[in-house]
């Protein structure tokens, strides 16, 4: 084994420092969220969990409106995931598998939607939803979140489908499969992990989104919208526990989609 040169040592020092920059704040909010309430008001604060307790987290979860908003957030995220996959994946498949006039135009149009602040469109949408009687419902938020996720879903699914050689589908079709059968039996199983990663990312996107959710709801808030609307009048334990609670899915989901990070972003950005 080669001895480590100084530059290798410095590389690792820098790597660890950058990792600490990301991790330490997460660690601190976790310590706060699992401290009993009187410790949260204490100063100076313990930097290590001296008394681990669920008191603060339970206080947050039992606060009025929190559980309902969690339920709504999950429903909205699942609806967003389902609709954006149902609408976007066929388009992704078309972009990956067919050569047709207008293909590049469509792709460029999808990519260029990223130059627009889509979230801001929730204001005119809210006015339309009021007129349609859809305002303040999980459906209205899910429709908005789908608009947000759709360009992303189309581009990612297209790159996922493109990663399966077309030969495999053609071979299946020569052996008597229909196009749909070839898709169902060949492409879908092979692309399932990639599609699942895209779906997970869509879920997180919806779970995290706060501006549109806060504009489009009044009483039926999603979790981020609820936390936002009461944040500045809330006691510290509520804020700390809420912040940690919002953050947990992010940590877990990133663990799952880690391997697909570059499938998701590396190609989307080109």
């Amino acid at each position, binding site marked *: 084994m080669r001895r480590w040169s100084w530059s290798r040592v410095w590389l690792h020092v820098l790597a660890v420092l950058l990792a600490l920059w990301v991790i330490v704040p997460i660690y*601190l909010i976790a310590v706060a969220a699992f401290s009993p309430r009187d410790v949260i008001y204490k100063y100076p604060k313990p930097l290590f969990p001296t008394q681990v307790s669920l008191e603060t987290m339970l206080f947050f979860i039992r606060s009025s409106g929190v559980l309902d908003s969690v339920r709504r957030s999950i429903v909205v995220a699942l609806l967003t995931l389902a609709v954006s996959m149902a609408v976007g994946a066929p388009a992704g498949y078309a*972009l990956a598998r067919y050569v047709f006039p207008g293909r590049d135009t469509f792709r460029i149009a999808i990519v260029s939607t990223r130059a627009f602040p889509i979230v801001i469109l929730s204001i*005119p949408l809210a006015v339309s939803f009021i007129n349609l009687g859809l305002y303040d419902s999980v459906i209205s938020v899910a429709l908005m979140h789908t608009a947000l996720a759709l360009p992303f879903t189309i581009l990612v699914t297209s790159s996922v489908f493109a990663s399966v050689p077309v030969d495999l589908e053609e071979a299946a079709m020569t052996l008597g499969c229909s196009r749909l059968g070839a898709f169902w039996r060949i492409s879908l199983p092979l692309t399932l992990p990639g599609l699942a990663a895209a779906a997970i*990312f869509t879920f997180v996107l919806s779970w995290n989104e706060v501006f549109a959710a806060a504009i489009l709801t009044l009483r039926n808030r999603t979790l981020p919208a609820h936390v936002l609307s009461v944040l500045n009048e809330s006691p510290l334990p509520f804020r700390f526990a809420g912040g940690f609670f919002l953050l947990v899915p*992010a940590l877990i989901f990133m663990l799952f989609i880690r391997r697909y990070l570059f499938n998701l972003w590396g190609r989307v950005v080109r």
Partner: protein
Amino acid sequence: MTRKMNWEPYLLLLPSFFYLIFFFGWPMLQAFSLALRGEDGGWTLAHIQRMVNDTFFREAVITTIALIVAILPIQFLVALAMALVVNARPRGAGLFLYFYAVPLAISDLAAGIVWFAIFTQRGYLNTILQAIGLIEKPIIFLNYQKPLWVLMAIVIAEVWRATAIIMVILVAGLQSIPNDYLEAAEIFGAGLFERVTQIILPLLRPSLQVALILRTILAFQAFAVVVALAGQGATVLAKEAYKWYTDIRNPHVAAAYAGLIMVLSIATTVFYLRTLRTPEEVSL
């Protein structure tokens, strides 16, 4: 030979096409119509005037732009450092990549609250500063009388949260740079600094451009971090739009803010595309 037109791809694209028309194209037109039309349906500049003459308008514009100017350079430096570290393959590169990428999935609201826990008067920063003896009693960082401190807190929170996306784009870009180039440079005696400035950065230009556009557009929408850290103490464009819609209940002025954010986003995209042409285009 005439080939039959294949309608299949168009059928597959149709749902997305209509979805984007209804939930992207239509609301965009609606935004301008809301901002530029009065109750009687006629065209008017009254809502725009009301927005511009509002007490908080100037502050919102200046803060939004100041945040972008302060945040982006730091973000690009940190992201570049992270990307170069990952690309140099330290031990446990996969784990480091995971850590660096985690904020990708953290919401702006959660990030705002995390940093609120650090910067608040009885928070962790004061605890640490006092523990190492730098201060005698806690400093009030998030004080409305000291807007510069509040802005600094927002900058740090945003750098923490939103650097990951740039990092991922840069790592993807770095992977497309052939190792031969860097090895050749090393053989000819180029140090790390020269390799970064002479080879890596020029070749990363397309990735940098994409990251820059993406980040700037997202920064124009900065919202929850500001609410969580500044409360009523500072304001940005998206926060004003939210306030006009939910508190003042005037969707017209809110839409005017939305339109302003849209115009600014498109203008910066065009500006970036024109000034930061990729080398191939320049040489033509």
